[in-house]
């Protein structure tokens, strides 16, 4: 079928809009990358757009030697890796019993968990509870706060429920108990949903900010987001003061913009490396989540 003139106009406008939209999603990143690789003077005089001016790795050297960033990076990795393991274990332990039709109290327990999605104690009471359990200043606080996402649990439960009954029956006849059934049959059949949810938990832990800000005071335990945020904050504090009294500006010592850009890149790079490999999983994960129930 030939396109009418109107359709042709529509398609061209559509392609242009989408191309512009897609590019706005990467240009800021490329800009930050270019700034991190540029000479400080070029950055401050606003000469850098998408290509580094005066190539240098100086800002990365400054970042690694002058700040705690390596420690923060390792902390982020620890929080993320162990956090994903804990979260997945607990999510499976919640989702499997709740997916069994013969589980006594199934709908009551589901409601009990779902209610916490709708109503929570809030920051202060949560803080007091965690303080009572003496987990302040440890990574455990971050893990406890994110241990089970009820939404993820519901997605997993729905997936478990949709595994054909016959497979499970035959496993039982072959002598599988609940644990064997879960580990040998259900989990291997659920790899797509497990991958997607592990990914979502991983992103959450990697980006964890508020939990670390509130519950961890020891600077050697900061993760990347908190460290980088403090570098950025020092810049915006600067600007705020300049806004009030411009003449003080030159007297302030501040981290060069290129170093802060390097900090941001530090946080983004691992994500960008993993991103192409996991893309198919997260799309699947969202689709599974969209299935009602």
């Amino acid at each position, binding site marked *: *079928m030939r396109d*009418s003139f109107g359709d042709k106009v*529509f398609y061209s406008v559509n392609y242009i809009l*989408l191309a512009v*939209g*897609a*590019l706005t*999603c*990467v240009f800021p*990143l490329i*800009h930050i990358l270019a*700034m991190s690789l540029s000479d400080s003077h070029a950055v*401050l005089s606003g000469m*850098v757009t998408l290509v580094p001016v005066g190539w240098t790795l100086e800002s990365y050297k400054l970042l690694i030697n002058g700040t705690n960033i390596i420690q923060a990076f390792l902390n982020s990795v620890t929080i993320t890796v162990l956090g994903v393991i804990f979260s997945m274990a607990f999510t499976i332990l919640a989702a*499997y*019993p*709740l997916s*069994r039709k013969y*589980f*006594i109290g199934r709908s009551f327990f589901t409601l*009990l968990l779902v209610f916490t999605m*709708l*109503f*929570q*104690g*809030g*920051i*202060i*009471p*949560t803080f007091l*509870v965690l303080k009572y359990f003496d987990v302040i200043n440890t990574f455990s606080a971050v893990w406890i706060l994110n241990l*089970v996402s009820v939404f993820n649990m519901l997605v997993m439960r729905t997936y478990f429920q949709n595994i054909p009954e016959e497979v499970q029956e035959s496993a039982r006849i072959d002598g599988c108990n*609940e644990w064997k059934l*879960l580990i040998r049959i259900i989990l291997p059949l659920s790899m797509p949903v497990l991958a997607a949810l592990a990914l979502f938990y991983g992103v959450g832990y*990697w980006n964890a*900010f*508020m939990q670390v800000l*509130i519950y961890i005071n020891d600077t050697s335990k900061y993760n990347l987001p*908190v460290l*980088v*945020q403090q570098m*950025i*904050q020092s*810049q*915006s504090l600067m*600007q*705020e003061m*300049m*806004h009030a009294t411009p003449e003080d*500006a030159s007297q302030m010592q501040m981290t060069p*913009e290129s170093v802060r850009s390097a900090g*941001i890149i530090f*946080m*983004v790079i691992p*994500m960008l490396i993993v991103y192409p490999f996991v*893309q198919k999983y*997260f*799309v699947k994960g*969202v689709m599974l989540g*969209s299935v009602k129930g």
Partner: protein
Amino acid sequence: MKFNRIAGNESAPAIQKDVIARSRKLRRKRLLRQNLPLFIMFAPVLIYFLLFKYGPILGLVIAFKQYSLAGGVFGSPWVGMANFEMLFNTPQMLNIIRNTLMLSVLQVVVGFPLPILLAILLNEVRKSWFKKSVQTLVYLPHFFSWVVIAGIVIAMLSMESGIINVWVQKLTGDVYPFLYEPVAWVAVLLASGVWKTTGFSAIIYLAALSAINPSLYESASMDGANKFRQIWHVTLPGISGTIILMLILSMGQIMEVGFDQVFMLQNSVVAGVSEVISTYVYKIGLLGAQYSVTTALGFFESLVGLVLVLTANWIARRFNRGLW
């Protein structure tokens, strides 16, 4: 006896009753045996939720108390509704509640239609390499933390070297304080949210769009419908169910503007519009140790949120689209 009803016969032989009773007992025993491992599995989860999710809910009692470190949650004296009265009599608190509502309503108004538009536009792309590349790029910002996004925003809009202000200066001769003018700040906040979430939120609509029967488009175009008419009469009705569902879900989040985004973009110059409940609770409640009043504020926020979800779901049920 109870099982007579099942047997359906008053004069059934005693032996039959006995068999039925025994089989029921056996079944119950098997059910219990089957449930035991499930309970063992579920116990840690249950303990976790009771301690760390329901514990804080119980802790909300301090909203009705004068919390003191010495007394703790249970030992502190009751003050009734005094904390709530204080909330609604302090102009600053009312301002914070207003900001929270304003920003989140704006976020829904601005952020809700865009993923639908993006999904519709993507759906009309016929070159699959183009579609795939666009999708890969627009999903990306969802995976960045607000630290990254705030860092980018501040770097680009900063007054002395931000690239946008360099251009603004070339055009107008002067820099513009994007982050220090209330209206501009709100625009920046909304735009950063759109940048982060639009692509990823479109996935769900794309899934809904893929379920529309292609022959509908063919017959529409046979009938002389141009692209816009096809979108209006085929595409939109095809995904209206998903749109309504997503709208309900977003209604539930009306009271949440999110801590990270606002906290990282705000500054004292625009505090008049940028202070929201969560950031205020953090600063005054946690750092300033004013536990009782800020708990009352958080309680109020949670309650309004709960009422909004229940209302939205109640409305949705009347259209048979409720979540429960």
